[in-house]
């Protein structure tokens, strides 16, 4: 059995990824999480002193709190298996990545275990977020200095 023969067999038998189904599920669950977030937004605007501009922070915190409960009771994992990116892309997925790592490494203590491993999955998001913010604002600053665009 040579490499090509095997590759052919492997490709024939491995079930194809159900792209359409997966994308639809991600759309529905992701949309639903955002709709819940939108409801929370209105809650904070109506009952607290938040405007549309400032309401983002308490909303994200609330979503992550819900995500903590779902993660801790093992439910977020089930949602993730169904929804894929639908539950990974919203900020609750970021929370899930941090919180699940924190729970997992609890047995190694709070300093090296929780502290050292909390961002082992989500750390890349912070790295790329901060780096690209730096690069983008630098480019903008250069362009403004050159007089190409305005602030």
């Amino acid at each position, binding site marked *: 059995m040579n490499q090509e023969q095997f590759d052919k067999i492997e490709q024939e038998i491995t079930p194809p990824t159900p792209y359409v189904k997966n994308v639809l599920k991600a759309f529905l669950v992701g949309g639903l999480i955002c709709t819940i977030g939108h409801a929370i937004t209105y809650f904070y605007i109506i009952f607290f002193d938040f405007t549309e501009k400032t309401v983002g922070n308490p909303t994200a915190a609330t979503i992550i709190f819900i995500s903590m409960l779902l993660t801790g009771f093992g439910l977020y*994992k089930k949602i993730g298996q169904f929804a894929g990116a639908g539950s990974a892309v919203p900020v609750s997925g970021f929370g899930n990545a941090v919180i*699940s790592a924190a729970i*997992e490494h609890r047995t190694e203590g709070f300093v090296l275990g929780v502290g050292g491993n909390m961002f082992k999955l989500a750390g890349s998001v912070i790295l790329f977020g901060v780096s690209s913010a730096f690069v983008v604002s630098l480019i903008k600053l250069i362009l403004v200095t050159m007089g190409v665009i305005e602030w």
Partner: protein
Amino acid sequence: MVIIFQSKPSIIASAAVAGPLERKSVFYSYFDSVVEDERWHQTTNEQGNAKMIEEACQILLKKANLNNLDIDFFLAGDLVNQMTPTNFAAKEIAASFIGLFSACATSVSSVIIACLLTELGASKYAIAGASSQHNSTERQFRYPIYYGAQKPATAQWTVTAAGFTLIGKHNPKNPSIVAATVGKVVDYGQTNPFHMGAAMAPAAYDTITKHLEKRKQTIKDYDVIMTGDLGKIGLEILKRMFAETGATQEELNIFRDAGAEFYGEDKSFLAGASGAGCSASVYFSYILQQLKDGRYKRVLLVATGSLLSPLTFQQGETIPCTAHAIEVTME
């Protein structure tokens, strides 16, 4: 490399224990003990894994009416870093110990070494086997337990289970190991750690064909050829590989896979079970029972293992795999 055991060492006794989720297994009734808590009432998952090994060995010794001073060698392995659960369990068992790692193929590789030591006359009784614990293995190889990553349909579920055997001198009343094949490492360039079946199938194919060739046997000489944990898709790939090289449908029906059958048709386990404890617990409970009951006369147990680590996978390496086989007969 095919080894023929002249003295035909026997499997004097065997024991299989499993975790709570393994109640869903179709082999559930063959297990000696099922524990409610997957940590075996310990603080950490790794301690739970060690406790599981200890419990399996205790059951094994009880069945054989021996105590741990009678044991010459303890040969075992698991999937956690440096096999620490097995190391800690070995401390309690207090026999001469060699830790083994062939990933999920450890269940068979440990038996092969035990047979060699028995054949050599160095060992009167040797314990051989393997275990895996879902939580500690997931953390070792994949993501935290509660992380919501989507697994594809080709992914397999690591079982919480352990299977151990007591290998001793030939005894016609017990199943005996007449030959074994120590597999080479085979790599067909598979890189997806969520599709282990495809990576391991060529290793199983290589080992089975070598074994049959050297032993001058055909597939039909066996009542069953059971692979370790290729899973549903991996088993299909293996069958197709044999079909392409001229096996008939009747012959293909002889192939079975412990991982593919472990959880039955339950879709939530995706492509089936995996882990060193999967093949160990099925081989050393269900298969041995079938041999003792006389339903099978000759079986080939082929445990497959994928020899990757999270490090090699992240560095973009392919997944090298191996498969070890033992030929077990009942007179």
